[in-house]
């Protein structure tokens, strides 16, 4: 039982980071139906920006998070403007391949500028343990979970209770109608990229702290995992990405704890396949039947 609780806590804190990345995938997909494969690399750049800022200035967690989130938000908007906007009316596969290209570009540029070897991320959070019976929780886990939950609450608030959130939801249901109701669609899409990328930037810093090491290719695996999390929960659905991310984190932790960490990815993929066979639109997705 203790073992189970322990793994559950580990899983939730790791999963909440997947969820942060997954939110960016799902929001961008929701609004322009693009799987933004460069999203994992924005997360990686978030970690690097945090790393540079924290080591150069010696400042703490909150300023590092803010700088990294702002940088990634701007980067997301610029990428959208340069790489995706000209392809707005092209086929979806074209945009998808462009996204893969952007991903390679970001990885290679980071390798060129920062070198290929791992960097040690400064410890921005106090090291320490809280013991509850036989279950231990690190301070880091508490902070990571608190920050991700705060960010998710903020996101949920923006999406459901503000004018730009309503515009995002309107554009994602019917772009043309939204345009005719006075919504600036381009601005709304830019904002969506900014929001998703800022969350990825935050995730980058948090992962840097969690594993205390970052590399230019660190975005690959979590990027794919977060994409799976988004599909898992139902792509395009915001709460789906949160649930999907946390579930994948828990599954991974439980498999590593009870079986072998070698199998954790395999189990995640098998469960994904089962879910998609049973509920093709994901956990929270609605299956839309074609009317004949």
């Amino acid at each position, binding site marked *: 039982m203790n073992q189970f609780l322990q793994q559950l806590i580990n899983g939730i804190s790791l999963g909440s980071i997947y969820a942060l990345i997954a939110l960016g995938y799902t929001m961008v997909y929701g609004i322009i139906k693009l799987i933004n494969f460069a999203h994992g690399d924005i997360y990686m750049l978030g970690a690097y920006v945090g790393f540079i800022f924290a080591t150069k200035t010696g400042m703490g967690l909150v300023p590092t998070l803010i700088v990294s989130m702002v940088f990634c938000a701007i980067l997301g908007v610029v990428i959208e403007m340069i790489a995706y906007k000209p392809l707005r009316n092209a086929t979806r596969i074209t945009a998808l391949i462009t996204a893969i290209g952007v991903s390679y570009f970001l990885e290679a540029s980071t390798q060129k500028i920062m070198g290929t070897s791992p960097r040690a991320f400064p410890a921005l959070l106090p090291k320490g343990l809280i013991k509850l019976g036989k279950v231990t929780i690190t301070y880091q886990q508490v902070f990571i979970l608190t920050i991700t939950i705060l960010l998710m609450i903020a996101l949920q608030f923006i999406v459901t209770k503000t004018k730009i959130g309503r*515009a995002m*939801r309107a554009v994602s249901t019917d772009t043309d*109608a939204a*345009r*005719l*109701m006075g919504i600036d669609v381009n601005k709304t899409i830019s904002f969506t990229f900014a929001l998703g990328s800022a969350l990825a930037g935050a995730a980058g810093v948090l992962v840097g702290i969690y594993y205390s090491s970052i590399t230019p290719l660190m975005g690959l695996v979590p990027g794919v995992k977060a994409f799976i999390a988004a599909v898992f929960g139902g792509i395009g659905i915001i709460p789906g990405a949160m649930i999907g991310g946390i579930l994948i984190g828990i599954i991974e932790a439980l498999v590593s704890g009870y079986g072998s960490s070698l199998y954790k990815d395999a189990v995640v993929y098998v469960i994904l396949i089962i879910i998609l066979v049973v509920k093709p639109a994901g956990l929270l997705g609605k299956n839309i039947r074609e009317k004949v």
Partner: protein
Amino acid sequence: MTVLETKNLTRNFGGLAAVSNVSLKINKGELVGLIGPNGAGKTTLFNLLTGVYEPSEGSIELLVNDSMKSIGGLKPYTITNLGIARTFQNIRLFKELTVLDNIKVGMNKNIKYGAISAILRLPKYYVEENRVHDEALKLLEVVNLLDKKDELAKNLPYGEQRKLEIARALATNPRVLFLDEPAAGMNPNETQELTNLIRQIKNEFDLTVILIEHDMSLVMNVCERIYVLDYGKLIAQGNPESIKNNKKVIEAYLGED
């Protein structure tokens, strides 16, 4: 006073002129009907006037701050912001949003707070959101949908979806309102109710209304003036009585003998 004017407006699709050399003049406060057989180019004309399509030739001018401004080829949201709103022939509500949120999306352009005041929840955010909330409720009251405000738009019955589209268009605070077949699929009772609604909002919101409609009883009943399109060209205009007896119009609808 002229509020909307087109001169020689033309739109080609490939070799086909869907709208050809159409010159209209709409006066402030008028209720104008646009009729014509299927495929005559009525919706294309609406799409040109609301910025969905760019004109191939000709001009569109809208009265903005007491002078005529060319709006041909402007982006749809810019045109909406200049005071033109519309509904759609095949209903295009934001289906997954609540009735209330559909209205609020329409009001978006008139909500004045930035992302920062929203995230930090500054007083400005609350003031503006409360104002928008109250105004949205008032609009729902006008179309009699107040008790449905928290339902998803897709769950409304058909007639109420039509009414919600009208309310959403009103939410953009228009001076000119285009209604694309508002009575399509309605029974005679609903059509009567709609007729009253159109008259009511025209007066209450000081609107100029242009409507496409196939239900002749509605058109003849509410419209002060009617334009008739056939094969993309204007073939007649005038008051309902003269249109009813116009030979060209009868030919267009029934064919020549």
